[in-house]
């Protein structure tokens, strides 16, 4: 009973929030953000622990694996575009990873955060299942990493379109590569609004970031800490 009601509740809230988002056209009403806040408030008010919620939630969560695999499809249909821009994609993914790590380590150092929090930040731009493993391997706090990853994704999805406008980032390649390598899957899910070409560049950048991050994060952690 609980399983079904949590499932229906999640899907119901999500569809309502999606409707509201499309209708209002306000990027702050990004459905992941509003649905999450709504669900957390409801669960806290009804005194339902997260584990109980996940009895229903895990059925949705389970689809995340096949959904990541499904991203091979836009990669396949846009393969020529990807190969044509392979140099840009590869260099920009590497640049984004270096910039992301350097800037977060600098800021964390500037405000005086502890080493385990700094390490938890390192894989922040990488899709959550990979980031979780990396964080665990380099001595971060996995729960903090998941939080950072999700927030980095939501921030990209909300502010990405504003940045695109302000800084004239207006080609599918530049939009896709920037979002995929800074804000992984959540950011890339926003790119569905920009068409298949942008989406496929976004997913290929996300995938490359995950592979690169799995190699680079442990090296950086080993060198610096």
């Amino acid at each position, binding site marked *: 009973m609980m399983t079904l009601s949590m499932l229906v509740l999640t899907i119901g809230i999500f569809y309502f929030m999606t409707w509201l988002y499309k209708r209002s056209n306000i990027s702050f009403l990004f459905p992941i953000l509003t649905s999450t806040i709504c669900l957390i408030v409801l669960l806290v008010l009804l005194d339902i622990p997260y584990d109980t919620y996940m009895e229903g939630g895990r059925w949705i969560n389970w689809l995340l694996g096949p959904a990541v695999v499904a991203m091979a499809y836009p990669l396949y249909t846009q393969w020529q575009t990807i190969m044509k821009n392979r140099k840009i994609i590869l260099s920009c993914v590497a640049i984004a990873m270096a910039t992301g790590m350097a800037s977060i380590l600098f800021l964390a150092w500037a405000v005086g955060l502890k080493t385990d929090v700094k390490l938890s930040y390192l894989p922040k*731009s990488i899709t959550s*299942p990979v980031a979780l493993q990396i964080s665990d391997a380099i001595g971060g706090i996995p*729960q903090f990493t998941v939080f950072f990853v999700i*927030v980095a994704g939501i921030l990209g999805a909300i502010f990405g379109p504003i940045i695109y406008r302000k800084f004239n980032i207006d080609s599918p390649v530049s939009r896709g590569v920037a979002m995929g390598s800074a804000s992984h899957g959540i950011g890339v*899910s926003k790119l569905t609004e920009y068409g298949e070409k942008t989406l496929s560049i976004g997913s290929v950048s996300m995938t490359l970031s995950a592979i690169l991050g799995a190699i680079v994060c442990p090296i950086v952690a080993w060198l610096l800490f």
Partner: protein
Amino acid sequence: MKVIRIILQIGVLYLFTLIGTWIVDWTHLPLPGSIIGLLLLLICLLTGVIRESFIKDGAGFLISILTLLFIPATVGIMNYPELLSGYGILLVVILAISTLFTLTLTGKIAMRMEARQHDDT
């Protein structure tokens, strides 16, 4: 009919996730099974082992509900109420600066590289 096709095709995509997970278990690669599954499916599509029509509807459906799929994991933040304190806000602020700076810089560099590529050709 289309509903059944979508469900069956999601089954195929799940199979790739499973194979990816097995490969990760064997080889101890530091990547999740789904990323390996993605690469495998891409190879199968490019080499023609699997026809596009075999996964098209299932993949299209999952990608269209992608944002929904992240929600249960995101709700897990509720287990960390300390992140809602002043300390948590500080952590989010520096995360925001770093992430948005990275996004902007990468986008600008990509634009410039693209412009140069067009000049060359």
